[in-house]
């Protein structure tokens, strides 16, 4: 299909490279260098969307991120991206785009009945209408969400890659227009590390449209020269297609870079989130043109004057064949002249001001353009495309004249883009001359150059940039480089700006095109008492859509100012918050997907477990073998088999994940005494002891076995989950409170691989491999020996978490796998069986050994666990004082008990609540809960541990456990030791 609205010449597109694209299923052609919007306009497409609330036809309105109307869906299937602005989508061959928020079609949209009903859909409509019946909102919401709103989220996993990168800059320059390029050059020449980000494909900003010269040459030539110099500087990084989204504390700036589109296949990555830490930020984000409020100001074919100008000059596209320019300021005449020079017929310039004595209106008149001074636009014709406007004197709105046109370019002045300044905490000040907010007091690490500071003349932009860039570099520690000399003469505009609203004849006057908020909505909000700007915003949704008030902010403030009878500065302004522009979930997630979300920590023997077909379970970040089921064997059966082996023969367990802390120095004994509640001073070198650690609150915090390697040298073990926390906690005490203790901690968790050999045949398996005398007399329970195992240097601890004879063998991690293999080999004749964490838990529960986090939850004292005898009465230790608080002892506390179900086959669920009577009136008094519960293959029945109120006084009582969706189970309260209570088995 031909590009009927492509101008015969001009523009920065590559006419040699045609690109095909589909919009709503129709094939069109554009050129390389086009945006989707410019290519659509080249094909005469103005109607691109239906509005949010009223489903009114809407056309392309802007040039970039400020676009409130042209939201389209790009891509297909999993690659769908909803709500893409056609103005920011780079055209690529094969691009597929579809309109949104319309049914059945864009041209014939049934939702448009909402527009006919618009008198009913005033501000606050939902709040007023959907109040009743209570609970009805769920249905209303579903209906409203179907009718209103924006695109649909893709339903398939995103197939694209998104990257994250951190970056550091001495000077970050945002915006590569005249001010930004000059700033980057000045800072770069000073030797600073500069990062220049710009959201456009090409650097230059407004310089790509301007007819004026820099240093006597066309502006684009200077842009090319400046860019080339920047690219030669080794410490300058220039990012195109990169939008600064937000500024946070201490010079932290988030930017998103879009990939260069490809026609075939997938891009290597689609977006990259840059997190930049900048010493200095130069904001050169330019300004966004604002509209004028007038009747029917949303007709397709109506657009910002700056957009119409850029489409003509930069993209070689006539947004219409016959244009009317509607103005309240002199800059609009530049648009009129540029359009005329590009070959677009300019039917008239309608200016709200009476006195047009400036140079630019003069130039327009000289060019033969018809200028209607003191006139406003009071109406128009055409539904899906503008056909004519009605102009009338502002003093006599009924005296209308009809001017035929197919393009209405509106210029209501310029708003500096102060979003990043606001993110940094800047408070803008109102400049009544510009009728705009400009930067007020300086924000942290930030300076603002050129149009973003309300300085719109080209020479000012260049001078600002050069000065602020050099100053930023100096503050970052770099002396100025070669000076930038930039001369850019242009006609001086008349700075007087007219009103931002045209006289009304009762039509719809939009303030926020994106959210369909009208002037009448804002006035109604004030009438109904929403006098604060923030309240009026939320009541009407003005400025709350994805465009965040980029085009409608000042317009709305002027309406509120008029309705409230207060000047604009007194009305105040709403706050801009990040992000400046919507950001995709993909960009925020980056590569933190799939296996890379959380590290999986693996032990030195992990590969053996995997090859043996282990079923793994996560324990914190570790993956541990839960059981080693044989083919067809259930977890339950495997655990039973593993428990029986460890009770009757010999089992092997990977205990490498246990936390291990080496404590060394003359203060080591005192330290241990302070962090454990039980006595360690009497522990002799070569021996080990179980230690119970309390928090400052007296509650059980961690436990483990600590061995005394020498007089001043201990090896502490902690729970797997508590390892890092315990290490940091003790280090904290040493560094902040116990500076008198000469003791050093070193984490050796990862240095040692640990294999636990457990069961009556453990000695027979280990014996042939080691030079250590394993006899019970020579190597008693709770002692340790150093020696060699299968030729490896080893520390062997005779401790037990199963109650049976057990050796914990520690070797340097590199030998872990070899140790495991040697033990398996040596154990083969004895039927050695590797066992996992499930069997470990059953083995310890049979013995009534606690697990911190199962039997404790941060509210459990040693006495609650029946371990009060361990607590030393002779020494001070962390948590001691808390133990004497009222409520820490006495009646009413929960005690650790055992439970035996009356039906031996019944295994209680962990967490089950416990009642005194089989049925109770509500609210049901619960006296405790199950903390651990397993089928015990040794006892051949269900066993459980539980915390029960006054549990030790209930021995032999029956308690009741109502199960979710099941029966109420009766169980007997017993001592929490089910197996070998006399400890006869530990020597094998």
């Amino acid at each position, binding site marked *: 299909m031909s590009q009927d609205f492509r101008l015969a010449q001009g523009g920065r597109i590559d006419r040699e490279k045609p690109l095909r694209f589909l919009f709503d299923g129709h094939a069109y052609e554009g050129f390389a260098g086009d945006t989707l919007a410019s290519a659509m306009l080249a094909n005469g497409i103005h109607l691109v969307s239906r509005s949010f609330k009223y489903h009114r036809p809407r056309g392309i309105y802007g040039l970039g991120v400020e676009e409130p109307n042209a939201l389209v869906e790009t891509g297909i299937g999993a690659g769908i991206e909803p709500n893409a602005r056609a103005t920011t989508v780079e055209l690529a061959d094969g691009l597929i785009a579809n309109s949104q928020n319309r049914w059945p079609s864009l041209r014939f949209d049934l939702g448009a009945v909402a527009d006919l009903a618009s008198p009913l859909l005033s501000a606050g409509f939902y709040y007023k209408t959907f109040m009743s019946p209570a609970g009805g909102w769920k249905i209303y919401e579903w209906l409203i969400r179907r009718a209103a709103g924006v695109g649909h989220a893709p339903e398939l996993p995103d197939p694209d890659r998104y990257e994250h990168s951190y970056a*550091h800059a001495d000077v970050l320059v945002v915006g590569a227009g005249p001010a930004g390029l000059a700033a980057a050059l000045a800072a770069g020449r000073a030797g600073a590390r500069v990062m220049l980000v710009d959201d456009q494909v090409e650097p230059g900003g407004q310089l790509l449209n301007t007819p004026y010269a820099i240093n006597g040459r066309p502006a684009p030539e200077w842009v090319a020269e400046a860019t080339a110099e920047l690219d030669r500087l080794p410490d300058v990084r220039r990012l195109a297609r990169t939008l600064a989204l937000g500024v946070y504390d201490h010079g932290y700036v988030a930017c998103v870079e879009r990939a260069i589109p490809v026609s075939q296949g997938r891009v290597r990555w689609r977006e990259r989130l840059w997190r930049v*830490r900048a010493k200095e930020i130069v904001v050169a984000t330019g300004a966004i043109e604002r509209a004028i409020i007038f009747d029917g100001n949303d007709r397709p074919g109506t657009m910002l004057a700056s957009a119409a100008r850029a489409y003509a000059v930069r993209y070689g596209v006539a947004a219409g064949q016959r244009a009317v320019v509607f103005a309240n300021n002199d800059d609009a005449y530049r648009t009129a002249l540029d359009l005329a020079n590009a070959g677009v017929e300019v039917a008239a310039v309608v200016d709200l001001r009476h006195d047009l004595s400036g140079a630019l209106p003069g130039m327009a008149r000289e060019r033969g353009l018809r200028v209607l001074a003191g006139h406003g636009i009071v109406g128009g014709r055409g539904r899906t495309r503008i056909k004519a406007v009605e102009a009338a004197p502002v003093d006599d709105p009924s005296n209308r004249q009809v001017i035929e046109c197919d393009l209405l370019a509106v210029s209501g002045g310029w708003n500096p883009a102060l979003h990043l300044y606001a993110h940094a905490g800047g408070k803008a000040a109102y400049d009544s001359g510009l009728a705009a907010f400009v930067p007020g007091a300086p924000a942290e690490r930030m300076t603002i150059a050129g149009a973003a500071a309300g300085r719109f003349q080209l020479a000012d932009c260049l001078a600002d940039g050069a000065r602020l860039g050099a100053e930023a570099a100096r503050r970052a520690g770099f002396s100025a480089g070669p000076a930038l000399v930039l001369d850019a003469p242009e006609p001086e505009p008349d700075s007087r700006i007219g009103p931002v609203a045209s006289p009304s004849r009762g039509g719809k006057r939009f303030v926020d095109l994106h959210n369909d908020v009208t002037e009448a909505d804002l006035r109604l909000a004030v009438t109904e008492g929403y006098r604060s700007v923030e309240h009026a915003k939320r009541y009407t949704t003005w400025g709350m859509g994805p465009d965040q008030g980029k085009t409608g902010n000042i317009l709305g403030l002027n309406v509120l100012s008029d309705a409230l009878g207060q000047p604009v500065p007194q009305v105040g302004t709403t706050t801009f918050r990040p992000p400046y522009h919507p950001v995709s979930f993909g960009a925020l997630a980056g590569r933190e997907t799939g296996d890379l979300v959380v590290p*999986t920590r693996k032990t*030195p023997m992990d590969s053996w477990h995997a090859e043996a077909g282990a079923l793994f379970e996560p324990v914190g970040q570790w993956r541990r073998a839960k059981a080693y089921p044989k083919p067809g064997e259930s977890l339950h059966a495997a655990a039973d088999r593993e428990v029986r082996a460890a009770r009757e023969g010999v089992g092997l367990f990977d205990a490498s994940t246990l936390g291990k802390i*080496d404590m060394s120095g003359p203060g080591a004994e005192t330290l241990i005494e302070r962090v454990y509640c039980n006595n360690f001073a009497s522990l002799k070198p070569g021996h080990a002891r179980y230690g119970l650690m309390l928090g400052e609150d007296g509650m059980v915090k961690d436990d483990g076995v600590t061995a005394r390697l020498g007089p001043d040298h201990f090896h502490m073990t902690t729970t797997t989950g508590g390892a890092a926390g315990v290490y940091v906690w003790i280090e904290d005490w040493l560094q902040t409170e116990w500076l008198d203790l000469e003791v*050093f901690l070193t984490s050796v968790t990862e240095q040692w691989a640990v294999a636990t050999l457990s069961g009556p045949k453990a000695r027979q398996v280990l014996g042939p491999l080691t030079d250590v005398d394993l006899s019970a007399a020579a190597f008693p329970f709770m002692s340790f020996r150093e020696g060699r195992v299968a030729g490896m240097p080893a520390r062997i601890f005779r401790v037990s978490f199963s109650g049976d004879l057990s050796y914990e063998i520690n070797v340097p991690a*590199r030998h872990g796998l070899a140790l495991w293999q040697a033990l398996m080999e040596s154990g083969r004749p004895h039927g050695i069986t590797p066992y996992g964490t499930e069997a470990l838990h059953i083995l310890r529960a049979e013995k009534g050994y606690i697990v911190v986090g199962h039997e404790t939850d941060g509210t459990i004292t040693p006495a609650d666990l029946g371990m009060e005898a361990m607590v030393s009465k002779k020494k001070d230790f962390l948590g001691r004082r808390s133990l004497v608080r009222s409520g820490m002892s006495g009646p009413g506390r929960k005690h650790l008990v055992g439970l035996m179900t009356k039906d031996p086959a019944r295994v209680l669920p962990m967490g089950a609540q416990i009642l005194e009577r089989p049925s109770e009136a509500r609210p049901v008094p619960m006296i405790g809960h199950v903390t651990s519960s397993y089928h015990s293959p040794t006892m051949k029945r269900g066993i459980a541990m539980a915390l029960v109120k006054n549990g030790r006084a209930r021995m032999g009582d029956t308690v009741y456990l109502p199960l979710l969706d099941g029966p109420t189970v009766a169980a007997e309260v017993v001592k929490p030791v089910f197996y070998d209570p006399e400890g006869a088995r530990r020597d094998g």
Partner: protein
Amino acid sequence: MTVECAPLDNVVRPGETNGPSGIALTDRRFVGQVNLRVRGSGLTAAGHALGYALPMAANTTAGDATSRACWLGPDEWLIVCDDGKQAELIQQLSAALAIDPNAVTDVTDARAVLRIAGACARPVLAKGCTLDLHPRVFGADRVAQSLIARAQVMILPIEGGGYDLFVARSFAGYLWDWLLDAGAEYGIRVEG
């Protein structure tokens, strides 16, 4: 003679590549590492044993042909040497520090060491590390302890550009996978 197993022995496939290579990635398997904790008068004694003064400025290193001391904290260093040399180093340090409170601990097996080199090594690390590794900031005598993605690492610059990444043994597989993934856009070559 037992078989020694480095953390990544089941992961690394030398010669593997995922694109035109801008990065070379090597598993150094074993690097001698001794954790030294000492303060006061022991500092000088430790310096004599090492043959050079311990670096006292935060995040700096000092060393000679045999070993390199990396500052980890006000009274903590990691002494890095060739694997096999750590026992001798421990003996020398322990002897020199006989009267000063200290902790000299062999942690050689506690960490894997991955070497990343090539023109794109810094951009790859910048994808998961918030620190500024620009040579102007992170020179040859520097060391850093930080996170790369979700793994704690000690980063040591190496001669000729590139870095040695010291990572807890159990995290080595995760970091390796992360580096291969992060480096994919530049192309990564696994060296043996």
